């Protein structure tokens, strides 16, 4: 703790590490404009010699990407909206209402967070099948309408809000629902943003569940579309990466747009 350097010796390690973390993204961008031959090099070329922008056109034409995008947007949008609404309601009930067995139910909810998807995959499929939703967007949406994680996240956040505010609102004449809408939710924007983004990412990136439920091309999502570039014999790395860049684009837009909210919510209200 003697004199303070403008930077600490730690940087000698930390700066290279953070560089390593950005590399994959750079590599993806570079690969997406390379020719198929160039992608086979090791170590991978990080500065492309020629820009094969045609990869993008080719990737787009290889499959009905427009349709895939629309499907992904419908599924993701519905999941995000319904999670925000339903998890708010359930989270508030767990956070503030007194009812018999609340603690027990909450522990049960936490326990379901621990069950790996592998275990519930098949029963979920059977339920969806029974509902007649196999090979339809409804089959993708139904299991994602509400998530235990979302309920947990919002419940925890709601509990950090001062009870006084809610009591003041009730004395001022609000109903319980009014308290939720006018006081609790406006103060929970960071948590709601986090839940929205996480749900967006999970649903948008999900590959395994669509693979099981969807068989026809016109119900496919972007992630399923990308899989078609990983052929049985030769993987077209460059096209795959071009497709990946396109699939990531909306995600990056959401992330950059909501980044301030997200970081703030994780950093200050996350656990703190």
């Amino acid at each position, binding site marked *: 703790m003697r004199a303070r350097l403008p930077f600490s010796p730690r940087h000698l390690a930390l700066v290279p590490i953070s560089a390593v973390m950005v590399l994959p993204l750079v590599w993806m961008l570079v690969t997406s404009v390379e020719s198929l031959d160039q992608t086979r090099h090791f170590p991978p070329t990080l500065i492309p010699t020629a820009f094969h922008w045609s990869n993008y056109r080719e990737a787009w034409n290889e499959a009905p990407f427009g349709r895939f995008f629309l499907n992904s947007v419908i599924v993701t949008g519905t999941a995000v909206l319904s999670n925000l609404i339903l998890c708010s309601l359930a989270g508030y009930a767990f956070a503030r209402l007194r009812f018999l067995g609340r603690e027990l139910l909450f522990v049960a909810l936490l326990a379901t967070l621990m069950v790996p998807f592998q275990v519930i995959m098949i029963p979920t499929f059977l339920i969806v099948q029974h509902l007649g939703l196999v090979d339809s967007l409804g089959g993708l949406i139904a299991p994602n309408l509400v998530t235990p994680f979302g309920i947990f996240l919002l419940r925890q956040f709601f509990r950090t809000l*001062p009870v*006084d*505010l809610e*009591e*003041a*609102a*009730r*004395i*001022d*004449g*609000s*109903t319980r629902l*009014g308290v939720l809408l006018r*006081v609790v939710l*406006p*103060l929970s924007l960071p948590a709601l943003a986090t839940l929205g983004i996480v749900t967006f990412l999970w649903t948008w990136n999900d590959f395994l569940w669509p693979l099981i439920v969807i068989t026809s091309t016109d119900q496919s999502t972007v992630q399923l579309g990308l899989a078609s570039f990983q052929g049985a014999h030769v993987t077209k790395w460059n096209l795959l990466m071009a497709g990946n860049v396109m699939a990531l684009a909306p995600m990056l837009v959401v992330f950059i747009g909501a980044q301030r909210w997200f970081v703030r919510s994780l950093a200050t209200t996350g656990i703190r």
Partner: protein
Amino acid sequence: MAPVVFHQVTKEFPGGTTAVDALDLEIPDGELMVLVGPSGCGKSTALRMIAGLEQPSSGRITIGERDMTGLSPGARDVAMVFQSYALYPHMSVRDNLAFPLRRRRMGRDEIGRRVTEMAEMLELGELLKRKPAQLSGGQRQRVAMGRALIREPVAFLLDEPLSNLDAKLRTELRAELKRLHRRLGTTMVYVTHDQIEAMTLGDRIAVMNRGRLQQVGSPDEIYRRPCNLFVGRFVGSPAMNLLPGPAVGRGADVIAGVRPEAMHRAGEVAGGIPLELVTDVVEPLGSDVYVHGSAGGEAVVARLPGNVQVSPGDRLALAIDPADLHLFDRETEGRLAHE
């Protein structure tokens, strides 16, 4: 404006703690009643039951003759100021003030008129567009008062509204609040753990301890005729000194209470009971000096004028006017009639 009455109100919490035990208390229309006691004495629970934030386990609470049992907080037409102020942080001062009116579906014009009026009265005009986080402690306190006053409620509940302010501002706002009550004439129930606040603010004071009401009366009554040892020790600072009966010429079954300011230097009181104080610690306050020491084997504190020179170790000859003695029964701790 309405009287608030507790009829044999008891509140037990899950786990078996009795926060309020068979409370009978009548707060007449327009009175400023202070509930005071150490933390955990049940004063806040009593207040929260008036507001409807807690339901009594048994007994009834009436506000202006109406039985409030089971009614939701919003249906009671009372207003409350919280210790934390509980201002809605995402709303401007204007929206905070308008919130209770909007919930009552008042017309837009009427709301605007009342907000302007209230802002003028509490000198908040400049601040209407600010968020609570941009206000100082004293300003927040005023907004919280305004939000409660704007509805013109029948009763006005205050839960330690000054305890988050510094000593200076607290003293100022105490006088301010007293002026406000005089002007409005609304029933007010004020909760505090600070006996000085209770003494200076209350028309009457209700002293509570461990869920039970100890004494109700004017500040003067409470100070001059405490009904038991607890009230005697709780009210007044420094606390009342306790001496065994024989030390002041009474029986052994008696405890005698003497307030620090009732200990005078010998010679100042004609016919006083003499007492020798062996000084231990001297605390100069400027205006007064608190002299800690022992007399008759008991630790005592005397308050002497600020210009008296005392040093640790000094032996002071003091005298007490017999009329200033408070006598309590050693067993029951109740007050004994002066012989």
